[in-house]
């Protein structure tokens, strides 16, 4: 599916930039991240069919920001950002579910990211139902992922319990 990047930019850039600003807390990085999201959109425009673009773009923005936090080893100040940094830096999340993502790609679906789920749960405080809706997953699937996260990622659990 070809996309008109100008149309998409006009409609969704404000939402994407707000998301990046919220996660990165720094304008220049947020602007870079926003551009990266639209670059990714151009490169994977086939993924857009059949869903609201806002959900996909919001998730793409979350992922791009997490990657930036991890690659730059940047730890922004503040209690929320500690949690965010832990999620972004914990490669075990992705290692654990990389294979699952691969399965999902095979069957023509979105690749759900456990880090995205963790951000929605721990940072955005979305309910399981809301996360399920955003991710296009079942509520039981979200519960399962979060229970595995709690079980295996002690640092996240500790931060959450604070």
């Amino acid at each position, binding site marked *: 599916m070809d996309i008109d990047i100008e149309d998409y930019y006009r409609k969704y850039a404000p939402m994407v930039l*707000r998301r990046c600003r919220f996660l990165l807390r720094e304008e220049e990085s947020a602007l870079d991240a926003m551009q990266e999201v639209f670059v990714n959109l151009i490169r994977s425009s086939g993924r857009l069919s059949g869903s609201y673009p806002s*959900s996909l773009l919001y998730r793409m923005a979350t992922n791009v920001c997490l990657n930036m936090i991890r690659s730059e080893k940047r730890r922004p100040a503040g209690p929320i950002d500690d949690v965010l940094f832990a999620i972004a830096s914990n490669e075990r999340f992705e290692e654990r579910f990389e294979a699952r993502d691969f399965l999902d790609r095979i069957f023509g679906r979105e690749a759900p990211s456990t880090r995205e789920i963790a951000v929605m749960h721990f940072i955005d405080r979305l309910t399981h139902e809301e996360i399920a809706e955003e991710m296009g997953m079942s*509520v039981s*699937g979200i519960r399962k992922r979060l229970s595995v996260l709690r079980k295996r990622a002690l640092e996240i659990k500790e931060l959450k319990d604070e």
Partner: protein
Amino acid sequence: MNNRRVPDITLERFLLDELDEKRVRELRDMIAADTVLRLRLEEMKESSRDILSLYPEETMSLRIREKAFRKTRRPLIRSKLKNVFYALFSKRLISAAAFASVIAAVTFYALTIYRPAEMRRQPEVADVTRAKGLAPGLYIYRKKGDSIEILENGSVAGEGDLLQIGYVSAGLEHGLIFSIDGSGAVTLQHPDRADRSTAIGTGKKILLPTSYELDDAPGFETFYFITSRKEIDVDMVMKKAQKIGRGSASDTIDFTRAGSGDRQYVFTLNKRK
């Protein structure tokens, strides 16, 4: 949603008119009664205007396209082409026919041999599906390295195995899929919630929308697929399944009576020790 702060993504989607009608109605009621929510929306609208004024579409879209172009170039092909052209023109050795054949060779290479890594990794699932036909029942696939294998009833599986559940219904339009593991835990696979319809697709193999990871429960994981001509009482079946709970390794338990089902298919995976 009433006693919680409305998430930003929900407000964003509201502004973009990308929420379903029910959520829109709920939000409109909340906005009418909540000044803070109205302010948040106004701030978002103002922020959108600021962003598009500060970073206008004309300049930003060019920048984005340029970045996208830089990323999608294929260095391998480009460098080979560069070498070929260098040889052709600097040494003046090649005729027009030879030039055409080189171009054809490079094109052939680009179209058939060089493929992005993602494409090379895609395994073929369709052959497995075709080979197994369309007998009614459960189909469970497991990721194995870079390929997918279809499991047989009684196969051995272990913690962390990634499974994809599929089913074929023999024309019955309702179905319930759940599993009971060796620790007694019951997991509802379809529908994704007990209060949702048990309607299923018929006439072809259908994969559930999410894959499933086996946990460390010992002994076994038994999957049940109950089909019916009418809506199945999920609560009734789940209650019975939960009662059976721990130690219920048997695959002969009949759940059809609990929820008005007509047929039952059972698929057991034995857990690796």
